[in-house]
């Protein structure tokens, strides 16, 4: 089962290496890992997607918590969370296919960020399933390269208003 772990860590050199090294040393598999700053300049957030049974993931969570520079770890499984992946993808796009591909991009709420002669670069964000679906939809045209951020996630805060 897929778990999204979110770790707040001290924004110091070596912390990411420590986290990544711990996964390797304990033979835990990382599906994706994303790191970025937070509103507090002393802290970074590492979002890690791991696949494993509950016992394995529980152990991952505890081992993360043991690293002195890791301030807080949350397992989002079973929680109401917003997750996003961001992808940049180059799609082969001869001029005659442009309209077709443009409508595809629109259907997925993607954004064209660059157009070269025979390639279009698209930015697309969303839950992982959407990204995967878009990749499949693009495949027939030819994918010329892609870069993905990995999942980032935040727990939804309880609030009365509707979801965006």
């Amino acid at each position, binding site marked *: 089962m897929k778990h999204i772990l979110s770790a707040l*860590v001290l924004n110091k050199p*070596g912390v990411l*290496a420590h986290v990544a090294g*711990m996964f390797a040393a304990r033979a835990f598999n990382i599906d994706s890992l994303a790191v970025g700053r937070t509103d507090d300049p002393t802290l970074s957030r590492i979002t890690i997607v791991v696949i494993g049974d509950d016992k394995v993931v529980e152990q991952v969570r505890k*081992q993360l918590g043991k690293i*002195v520079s890791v301030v*807080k770890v949350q397992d989002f499984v079973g929680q109401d969370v917003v997750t996003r992946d961001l992808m940049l993808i180059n799609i082969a796009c001869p001029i005659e296919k442009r309209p077709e591909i443009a409508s595809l991009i629109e259907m997925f709420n993607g954004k064209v960020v660059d157009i070269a002669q025979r390639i279009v670069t698209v930015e697309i964000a969303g839950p992982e399933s959407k990204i995967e679906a878009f990749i499949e939809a693009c495949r027939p045209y030819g994918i010329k390269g892609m870069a993905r951020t990995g999942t980032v996630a935040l727990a939804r805060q309880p609030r009365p208003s509707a979801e965006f």
Partner: protein
Amino acid sequence: MEKTATDNANGMVYKPGSQVMVDMLLEQGVDTMFGYLGGVVLPFFDKLYDAPINFIIPRHEQGGCHMADAYARATGKVGVVVATSGPGATNLTTGLATAMMDSIPLVAITGQVRTDLIGNDAFQEADTTGITRPITKHNVIIKDPAELARAFREAFYIAQTGRPGPVLIDVPVNMQVARCPVPPKSEITLPGYKIRTQGHSRQITNATQAINESQRPVLYVGGGVIISGASDALRQLAQKANIPVTMTLMGLGAYDQTRPESLDMLGMHGAAYANYAVQKCDLLISVGARFDDRVTGSLETFAPHAKIIHIDLDPSSISKNVTVDIPVVGDARQVLEAMVELVEYRPRKEWFEQIAEWKAKYPFRYDRNADVIKPQYVIEELYRQTNGDALICTGVGQHQMWTAQFYKFKRPRQLITSGGLGTMGFGLPASIGAKLGCPDQTVIDIDGDSSFNMTMNELGTAVMYNLPIKVCLLNNGFMGMVRQWQQLFYGRRYAHSSLKNPDFVRLAEAFGAVGLCVDKKEQVPEAIEKMLKETRPIVVDFHVDPEENVWPMVPTGKSLHEMDGLDIFEMA
């Protein structure tokens, strides 16, 4: 370089980094430390020269690290070791990993090349924090003079609180000569570092209730009991509730083995009566132990009838290997003290009768009538002549297991051995560190010939500092433990498992120690007497039966009750 402390406008004291390092050690109460010089620690050593610290130079940084580790194990204080950059730091790694696996509080200080050279493959540069990250509880490199003092205070705090472990501080040489501020000592706040010492009260109630209801409980205790100083509480609990106690290798000494409730060591080479008790118990109360594979045998069939209570400070130990019914995260002493109040006496007559029967039927045994010197006999004789009071260190191998089986430990910190990592070569440097920590105790290194070969250069250290440690060498001419496996599992093909040993007597003498060789059984008592009387460091080379095995043995993958070798001496 600045020589004196100066005050600036806002009253902050500034000193050269090297002086701050020494001041921080003194502030932490360090009076003994171990280490080896090198180019990038010269400023620090220059300041250490005048400090009121007993400084011990090992012959190799690994030895120094084991000494600091054993000093910590023997005293409960934090061990301190220093090494230079590059090869000095890499030589520490075995020692750090050893301390990490056994949760030993250690502060290692390494020198590093100047910050502007880091990453350039400078002379004697190694990525020390990168290399040691998985084998330290925490490590840090100082790149800002303002961080130096705090890093030392935090290192000592992290090393000895929670589940203890080694902490490494890498100090580039330019930081040692930089002007560093020394803020006043204040409480340490580490945002990511929380320790739950008091167990959850409902879990404690659940645990005691399970104990009161249990017909056949067993306490299974490990090194955590010793670390947390929980031995008294453990004794009270075991006696008040009337529960037998078995120990892991790291736990030996946590419970007085001369008491009738002691089931001695369990596990792969543990007592049959301990293993049977675990397999038959209806309640297993684990305290400060971590269900290591050497203890549990096959996990699927481990303690099949038992409800399991697991008391441990480290939440990641709980339900890591076995699924626990009642987890209690907390400090062993605090939790046990709380439990003592709530448990009730139960006679458990049948259970103790059953245990007594196992004990009578399956004691640790060996062929006492053999003509050759049996290694177990040497240990028994040592036990007798020291009244079971000596502080024992060991190497790793058969001799370590025989020590665990045949020396009965009475008090915590009496056995110092590398349990988790199983580091050959630990024994001799450990005995030196232990002797420095406990000068009034008789300190004996029960060692194997191959283990001893790994670090025997430290005899020079023992002689240099007049430390009358005693090396009791159980010399079987083999890497005995692996030879035993080759005999049992590889058709007796002894592939590369013996060394050509030096003449240990002359070796000892060359170092300025005393050497003694014993190859007849009748000489054993007298040799031990001599060894105990000797006031200089001494090596006694006992030529023991080369092909003796450690029994009983649970082969890997088998259940704890499936022990080989129980019937071996029944005819004797």
